[in-house]
């Protein structure tokens, strides 16, 4: 039995639907289309799959997906909590299952009508949230109702403490928009953005302007995870899971961890960094590209520091040196990310991480051996490093 998850499992298939503002179909339809495509991509049959993992927020239950796709017997399933914080958790759960023999081939998925159905940008209300309703009661009456408002409180402090400005945020948004121009699936393809476009967009929650915030989209995305051994004999070049973890830090709340000493940092991401670097024996210098969770641009700055790509407070200079572009030190969100491809709750960022290892990204940098992908910021989260066989 393995003692760590290091190199035990791999992503052997990815699948996604078209991303749109109005899918016109059910979320189950999106989920099953993505799952089926991930299975096909790996060169397997639905009956080869014996495990499924999704988000607690996903409306398509595992058995409904299994029955629709034609997946037969299952020995493993689970759901991961905390919105976009779940993304990497899906991979972690699936990897544990295949590493321990609980299941052979596990598909992880997320599908949502995030624009035409229930819109997350519209915030929480007493009607929608139930399990952590009391937690939200400390914020809702005060009008702190949306992800943008919660993140803005932290971003304001970070920017003031380290002298980061709107121009630094704009750099991130514009770079990812540029990446999306080569991505046929990106919602923002054909809509390049200038500094003026960014600055003239309306203020949402200071300091966040419209294009600091990700989109809302409809779509589905899935990954097939199997053992690193079996993956070698499958159809695609595997993306081996070098290291993966979930991470929640002391004082953690869902989006509202306002009670810690230093609000200008992401200690749960620092925890994730420590664990995955230890597991893999790698460091920031070994990471060739990244898909850092980008629901809001300031999250990128704080993650660059948490994962050691630069020192505390230095991320603003790191991004203005064009480090996140294709020729830069750390090409980031080469598909456009949640900001400019689509908001698939982070699973589309995982799929891009796999493409970067395969060498099939629409913006493929040279010589990518290791890719870092993270999940939601401000929530219990996680991080994964994909590597070559």
């Amino acid at each position, binding site marked *: 039995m393995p003692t760590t998850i290091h190199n035990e499992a791999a992503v052997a298939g990815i699948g996604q639907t078209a991303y749109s503002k109005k899918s016109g179909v059910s979320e189950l339809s999106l989920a099953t289309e993505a799952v089926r495509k991930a299975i096909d991509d790996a060169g397997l049959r639905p009956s080869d799959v014996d495990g499924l993992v999704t988000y607690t927020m996903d409306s398509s239950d595992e058995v409904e997906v299994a029955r629709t796709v034609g997946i037969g017997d299952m020995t493993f399933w689970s759901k991961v909590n905390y919105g976009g914080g779940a993304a990497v958790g899906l991979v972690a759960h699936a990897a544990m299952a295949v590493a321990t023999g609980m299941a052979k081939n596990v598909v992880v998925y997320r599908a949502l009508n995030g624009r035409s159905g229930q819109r997350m940008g519209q915030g929480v209300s*007493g009607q929608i949230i139930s399990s952590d309703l009391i937690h939200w009661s400390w914020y809702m009456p005060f009008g702190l109702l949306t992800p943008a408002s919660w993140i803005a409180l932290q971003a304001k402090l970070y920017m003031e403490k380290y002298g980061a400005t709107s121009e630094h945020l704009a750099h991130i948004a514009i770079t990812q928009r540029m990446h999306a121009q080569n991505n046929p699936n990106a919602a923002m393809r054909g809509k390049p953005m200038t500094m003026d476009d960014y600055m003239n967009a309306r*203020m949402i929650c*200071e300091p966040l302007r419209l294009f600091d915030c990700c989109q809302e989209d409809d779509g589905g995305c899935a990954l097939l995870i199997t053992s690193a051994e079996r993956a070698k004999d499958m159809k695609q070049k595997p993306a081996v899971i070098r290291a993966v973890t979930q991470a929640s830090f002391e004082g953690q709340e869902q989006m509202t961890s306002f009670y810690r000493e230093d609000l200008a940092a992401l200690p749960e991401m620092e925890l994730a960094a420590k664990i995955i670097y230890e597991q893999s024996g790698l460091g920031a210098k070994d990471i060739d590209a990244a898909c850092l969770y980008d629901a809001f641009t300031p999250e990128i700055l704080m993650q660059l520091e948490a994962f050691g790509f630069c020192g505390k407070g230095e991320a603003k200079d790191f991004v203005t040196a064009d480090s996140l572009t294709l020729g830069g030190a750390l090409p980031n969100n080469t598909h456009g990310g949640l900001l400019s491809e689509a908001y698939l709750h982070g699973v589309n960022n995982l799929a891009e991480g796999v493409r970067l290892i395969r060498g099939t990204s629409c913006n493929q940098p040279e010589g990518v051996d290791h890719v870092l992908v993270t999940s939601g910021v401000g929530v219990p989260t996680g991080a994964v490093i994909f590597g070559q066989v």
Partner: protein
Amino acid sequence: MNENDKKAFETQLRTFVGRPIGPPMTGRDPVNEPMIRQWCDAMGETHPAYLDAKAAKGTIHGEIKAPPTMLQAWVMEGWEMHEGYDEPKNEQHRLHKFLADHGYTGVLGTNTEENYTRYLRLGEQVTAETVIAEISDEKATGRGIGYFITTRTSFVNEKGEDIGSMSFRVLRYKPPAEAASAGGGAGKDGKSAAVAAKPTRIKPPMGQDNAWWWEKVAKENVLPIQRCTGCGKLRHPPRPMCDACGSQKWDSIAASGRGTIHTFTVIHYPQFPGYDYPIVSIIVDLEEGERMASTLVECKPEQVAIGMPVELLIHTDEDGFKIPFFRPAK
């Protein structure tokens, strides 16, 4: 409606597109000073070009002109509007009745656009011609499924000169079943918005671990802070166990109400009913050492700063709900 009925309905609906609502409508009175003055009284207008011939001479307008947004007033039907339109009098009414008869009973004005070619002079006689310009596909909206109807009106004077135009967009919708009897539409042509009850802020959902706190705010006009009776540690937001000593026993103290702003944001969008925007949202470091989320009032957004001293203010909403806010310290 089954599929065939729906098709027949859609076909008939489309026949309205492009139809003038009726013959051109000429205003009862030419542009005149008494009506302008009555308008200015109501609007609190003191603009010299609308009210004072002599003063108008010294402006770009040169003479008395009608306020631009009065354009439609010159062709309003006036008194007869109070009778309503239970019997449709024009094509627009017939279109609305047709939709209402098919279950689209809700009506809501959503947008207008007016273009003023120039301001009107005294004595000009306004004529309006209105066409049903567009009917959208059936849309899912926050109110229910429905159709957006756009009418376009062109305005000319007695010489046929173009003086302006207007487009007006109305949503005609099927209210969800339970809401069908409440609220409802107002003006039959959709020129009036309708809402059933005045919205209020989202109230805190009450459970055993937090209800006591809100009740203390309401009854005692204080900002309570939970305190462990085992070791004395304060904690906010309240939780049922002390993370330092494990005690499940607690009481509370009243905060002094003094604190400083740890961080803040100014919330502009999206805007929820029941809140007053922009909201200056703050995280406060209370003097006692605990931190809490709240709202800053009596302060302009551009004057907020990290580190600013603030003081407690128990705010009471119109519906009587009490909530602890802060304002700049005196």
